[in-house]
């Protein structure tokens, strides 16, 4: 077995140094009647070629985003990632290190986390950020729990534009801890009055912009209304590239911003691992969940970085911790911060403009088809169309023609029959003029 260094002679010599006769003597504490004597009913060890053959065959049964005109979004987006990013994150010193518990030999990880936190704060327009969460949806759940702690109130109000799976994550957490949630109905038309749902019991109001249908919301009046009632505004961003074009939630009064950072550096990965961004106000840092990196000095007075504020965390506070979180999404945070340092403000703003322009061009091309209506007059790189017939059938028919044309809204909200004819379509910098033309032509054929 290529990963195991010992020879049988080594094992024998080691057993003898330990003072036992056989390896089974070291497993004697396992009760005899539950000890496994027969091997597990699984295949035996396999060489690299064999593993590549088997996994390669599975991989070949999938359609990669790069291989077709691709317009699927809803919380995960196909973007181009520079080659430098994947090269750097595969350096041994980043890939195969642990949580930086020994800061003297972990400054590489700690410095990039400090830089990552700064970038996230700048992007979201907030004062501080943590060292990342598992993903945007779990970050959203943690933000609601943080709002409970800060306000000592329990009710969360969720906008109908919130990604339905994010809503489900919050709902699951709150159901289990028996806290009330008021989830407003799906809002593809942008008509909900969320301000009316905020009252004196409201801990937080959760609003996504651009929302799951693509619509852009001005958060300023919502923040003002929430603050007036003593509630917090949690802003959710599932397409972080949008903050290269749009006013950040921090400038519109958000108290906590949670975002999915997957679009920058991480890739699609069939849903994970991704990287959750979590930012808030300086005054709330002691109630913030997750790992945090801070600046300090070493014994010689030289600037360095350490994990800090650990008195919030489970390994110190146990059942009184702010959250049970132990890991962050370190390597994905590294991919994010490398890609963003390549882009810089100039690159990110240009990337955002390209995304927007491509989406506008696509929306125009699709809505030129008879029977197709645009539901979202404002949008960034994703919008919703209404099609005649069932959206799910249209998506499948497009897939048969080699076009991955978006997500049918009813896939995310199977209980909302009114969404059956809606398709959420995303366009990014990877789409060419030919891709858009192919989509429009295929949709026209499918609908005719």
């Amino acid at each position, binding site marked *: 077995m290529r990963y195991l260094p010992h020879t049988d002679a080594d094992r024998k010599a080691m057993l003898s140094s330990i003072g036992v006769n056989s390896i089974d003597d070291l497993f004697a504490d396992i009760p005899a009647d539950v000890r496994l004597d027969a091997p597990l009913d*699984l295949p035996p060890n396999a060489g690299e070629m064999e593993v590549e053959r088997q996994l390669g065959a599975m991989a070949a049964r999938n359609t990669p985003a790069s291989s077709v005109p691709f317009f699927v979004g809803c919380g995960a987006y196909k973007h181009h990632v520079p080659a430098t990013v994947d090269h750097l994150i595969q350096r041994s010193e980043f890939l195969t290190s642990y*949580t930086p518990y020994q800061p003297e030999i972990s400054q590489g990880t700690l410095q990039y986390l400090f830089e990552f936190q700064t970038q996230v704060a700048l992007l979201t327009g907030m004062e501080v950020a943590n060292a990342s969460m598992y993903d945007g949806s779990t970050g959203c759940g943690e933000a609601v729990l943080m709002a409970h702690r800060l306000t000592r109130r329990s009710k969360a109000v969720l906008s109908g534009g919130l990604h339905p799976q994010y809503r489900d994550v919050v709902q699951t957490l709150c159901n289990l801890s028996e806290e009330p949630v008021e989830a407003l109905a799906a809002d593809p038309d942008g008509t909900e009055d969320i301000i009316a749902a905020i009252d004196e019991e409201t801990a937080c109001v959760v609003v996504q912009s651009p929302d799951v249908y693509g619509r852009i919301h001005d958060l300023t009046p919502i923040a003002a209304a929430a603050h007036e009632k003593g509630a917090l505004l949690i802003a959710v961003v599932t397409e972080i590239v949008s903050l290269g074009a749009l006013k950040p939630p921090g400038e519109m009064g958000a108290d906590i911003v949670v975002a999915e950072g997957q679009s920058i550096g991480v890739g699609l990965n069939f849903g994970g691992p991704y990287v959750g961004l979590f930012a808030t106000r300086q005054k709330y840092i002691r109630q913030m969940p997750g790992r945090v990196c801070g600046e300090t000095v070493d014994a010689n007075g030289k600037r360095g970085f350490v994990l800090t504020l650990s008195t919030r965390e489970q390994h110190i506070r146990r059942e009184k911790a702010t959250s049970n979180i132990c890991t962050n999404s370190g390597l994905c945070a590294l991919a994010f911060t490398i890609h963003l340092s390549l882009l810089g403000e100039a690159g990110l703003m240009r990337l955002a403009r390209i995304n927007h322009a491509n989406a506008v061009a696509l929306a125009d091309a699709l809505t030129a088809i008879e029977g197709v209506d645009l539901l979202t007059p404002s949008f960034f790189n994703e919008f919703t169309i209404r099609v005649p017939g069932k959206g799910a059938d249209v998506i499948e028919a497009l897939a048969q023609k080699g076009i991955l044309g978006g997500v049918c809204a009813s896939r995310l909200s199977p209980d909302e029959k009114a969404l059956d004819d809606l398709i959420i379509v995303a366009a990014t910098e990877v789409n060419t003029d030919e891709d858009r033309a192919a989509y429009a032509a295929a949709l026209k054929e499918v609908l005719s």
Partner: protein
Amino acid sequence: MSMNRGGRPTSAQGGGTTDHPTFTGNKALQIEEPLLFEVGNTTKTGVDLPEPGNVENRLGDLERQSIGLPGLSEPEVMRHYVRLSQKNYAIDAGIYPLGSCTMKHNARLNEKMARLPGFGDVHPLQPQSTVQGALELMHTLAAWLLEMTGMAGVALSPKAGAHGEFCGMAAIKAAQLAKGDARSVVLVPESAHGTNPATAASLGYSVRDIPARDDGTVSPEAVREVLGPDVAGIMLTNPNTCGLFERDIVEIADAVHEAGAYFYCDGANFNAIVGKARPGDLGVDCMHINLHKTFSTPHGGGGPGSGPVVFSEALATHAPVPYVIQTGETYSLVESVEAALEDGEHPFGRQTAFHGQMGMFVRALSYMMSHGSDGMRQASEDAVLNANYIRAGLRDVMTQPFGDQVCMHEVLFDDTFLKDSGVTTLDFAKAMIDEGFHPMTMYFPLVVHGAMLIEPTESESKASLDQFIATLRDLTRAAGEGDTERFTGAPYHAPMARLDETRAARQPILRWTPDMPAEAAE
């Protein structure tokens, strides 16, 4: 002095002096590196992008004017991160014996497999007809996990170990609520990882401690004493955080079940027993598995992890969505609670958007297929062998809190051997850094004073272990002989001297700001 013909000295004579500060603060391969924000600027970019198309903007009057993010050219980015990387220790460079963290070899085949476009470049919401191979991979991984653990059901979606703990305990809560039997207390041994009590509390449970007996394990009597009709379940790590197999685990499970409670096993240390014992046979109702520990997906500086949970027959129906089902040759996802109810299941809800850490699933399955049934068993045996070899090599110079007894995959020492030496566990760990080793887990588990928990894993050769043992013997001797400065000022040779953690916590600086003074060279 010998020289070549051009007058260049070729012998080492005269070199090798140590305390010779440089003008730059650099130390040869160790190069000082400023923050991104001190080297980049907002007009520069390392990505060439085309001109955006000319369209009328539909951003709804919420356009952004500036961000303040610096950019760097590609060579500058490369250099920045390579220099940072050179300040990190890594398992690829040497033994990383963090107890309970399981830093084993990360095979690059697994990285290669995860990057196949069919896995790395597919979207979670693509039509399911276009991702049949991805669903097959998830289904296959689930089947391997069930066979290894002897359990009935599995939830793949939890994003990390603690997320898996929540998943397991949520299923327990759902099962009891479904029976109309709401309970309020969870039993947790004092030696447990901090995530256990934190998880129980986050589900609204209060935590009742179970003391350990003198040999470091939990006794069935101690469990019976605290069991009652208010107890929802027990969270027990096995092998436990002292590196010991809970030898009365079956009796404990029986007692828990008799009281109408469930047995949550923290599977952080499952790597010690793969192919040797199955949690399902031990009476476990649910257990999370850290794919980044047992199945070697890289730790990546603190994540991403992946924490699938396996369930007994009694709890499997409450596993969260999504999950994969197979009908004939076709795989499909059950993505909503409504659909799961139609499928006859009773999930407690959803824990994350999408389907879990697919990238980690691929890596873990690649590890499993590479090892196979025989290799995984051998890996567990070698991990246990290596920990006991370290124990045998150090038992006469270091002290074990529960006496010298056989351990599993990790061996626990306390600081009794450092008594009156003026050296603490922390100092000892920092001196190990100077010797080129990553220290072991320190001060955990909390039940042992000055704990040092060493987990070598199966990846270390005998030669590597011999060197590690010899160095620790040298250090214990130095501590005993009063060479305290070697410890109290350590590390002397790391990229940084000891860092002031108190200052970081009291005056938190969590980000760079433009008015911060740039770091002057040392």
